[in-house]
């Protein structure tokens, strides 16, 4: 795809950095051809593709920018989507208890850990709803949008969502940048906002429910594609008048294939029973099933 742009500042950088890239690549393959002899050059090239962040956007002669969208997963997650097809309603409505149990069973068997719409006697107002895109959240005092990016491509993909003016439901994730752990980073990266205030029993036992919901892990599934992500509850919302039932961080929306266009779609969201905190946050693939 050929780019044309009327922005001289952009063209200047594109040409300069493309030339730099060509020169770095040539130097790399010249210097390390000894390894290239043992591993087919194609493999080494593939390795560079595999290990370059956002590999699909590896620059070539006519650079194609990464659209930032995770494409439909062509593996067991697609099989999951098929399994869910007859279980998930075609219209946007709450699931019945039977539907929740059937879907919970499918998800538990697919992923190998307990997944359910109700956990420890508590549930949300619904488990199937419309998700909308949320902004990043401040993780500590002095945090900013740029600091959320691990690399330049992160900024390009997720930076445009912006950062919420207020804090999440639980406040800052940590007290300072120095004390921020990888757990704090992942909690913000893969957070969802759910309507905690509409959960049955919430207003009667607010403190108890607050403790239950705080960073509670939930499995989020795009039933049309099977794309799945382990998320945590880090905010409350959206308001009922929006017509949406939950919100996802920019990374969550990307993981379930809803980061482009209207940034909205139907998702399943079920609790994960993970008392020992062993299930990592982030995109998750359905493992191979044992015969």
């Amino acid at each position, binding site marked *: 795809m050929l*780019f044309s*742009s009327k*922005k*001289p*500042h*952009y063209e*200047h*950088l*594109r040409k*300069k*950095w*493309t030339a*730099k*890239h060509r020169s*770095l*690549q040539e*130097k*790399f393959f010249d*210097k*390390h051809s*000894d*390894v290239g002899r*043992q*591993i087919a050059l194609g493999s*080494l090239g593939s*390795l*560079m593709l*595999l*290990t*370059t*962040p*956002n590999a699909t*956007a*590896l*620059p070539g002669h006519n*650079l194609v*920018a*990464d*659209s*930032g969208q995770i494409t439909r997963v062509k593996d067991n997650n697609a099989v999951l989507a098929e399994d869910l097809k007859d279980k998930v309603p075609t219209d946007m409505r709450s699931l019945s208890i039977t539907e929740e149990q059937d879907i919970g069973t499918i998800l538990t068997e697919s992923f190998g850990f307990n997944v359910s719409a109700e956990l420890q006697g508590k549930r949300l107002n619904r488990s199937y709803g419309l998700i909308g895109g949320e902004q990043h959240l401040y993780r500590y005092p002095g945090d900013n*949008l*740029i*600091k959320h*990016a*691990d*690399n*330049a*491509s992160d*900024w*390009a*993909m997720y*930076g*445009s969502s912006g950062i919420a003016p207020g804090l999440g439901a639980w406040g800052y994730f940590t007290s300072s940048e120095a004390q921020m752990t990888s757990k704090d980073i992942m909690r913000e990266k893969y957070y969802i906002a759910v309507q905690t205030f509409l959960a049955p029993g919430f207003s009667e036992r607010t403190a108890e429910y607050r403790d239950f919901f705080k960073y509670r892990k939930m499995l989020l599934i795009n039933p049309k594609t099977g794309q799945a992500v382990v998320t945590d509850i880090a905010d409350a919302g959206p308001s009922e008048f929006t017509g949406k039932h939950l919100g996802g961080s920019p990374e969550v929306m990307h993981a379930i294939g809803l980061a482009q266009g209207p940034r909205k779609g139907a998702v399943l969201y079920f609790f994960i029973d993970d008392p020992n905190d062993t299930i990592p946050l982030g995109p998750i693939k359905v493992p191979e099933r044992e015969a």
Partner: protein
Amino acid sequence: MAFYTKYVVVESLVSELHEMDLSESERAHLSALIDSNLHHQIMDEILSSLSVDDKKLFIKLMEKDPESERLMEFLNGKVDNIEGRIQKVADELVSEMEKDVKEAKKIK
């Protein structure tokens, strides 16, 4: 996330780019170039510090899991101050690209 990500600081460079008038695709394009250039520079620094046999072993480890922390453990066992060296080449390239951005901003 690449195994060397924590040694690479692009904040100042991304801040400069953030102020530029760029479309989504232009932003993605330039970001891909930044990350790929850094990746090549860092990989060159790493492989240049290893013997041929260690290079092959390292590449095999990378093929298994390019994000594994074991990669840094392996390198720390083979190369003195590899973390500092990665940081140095990354910082130099980031500074270079930051200058390019400042130069580009002056173009009308």
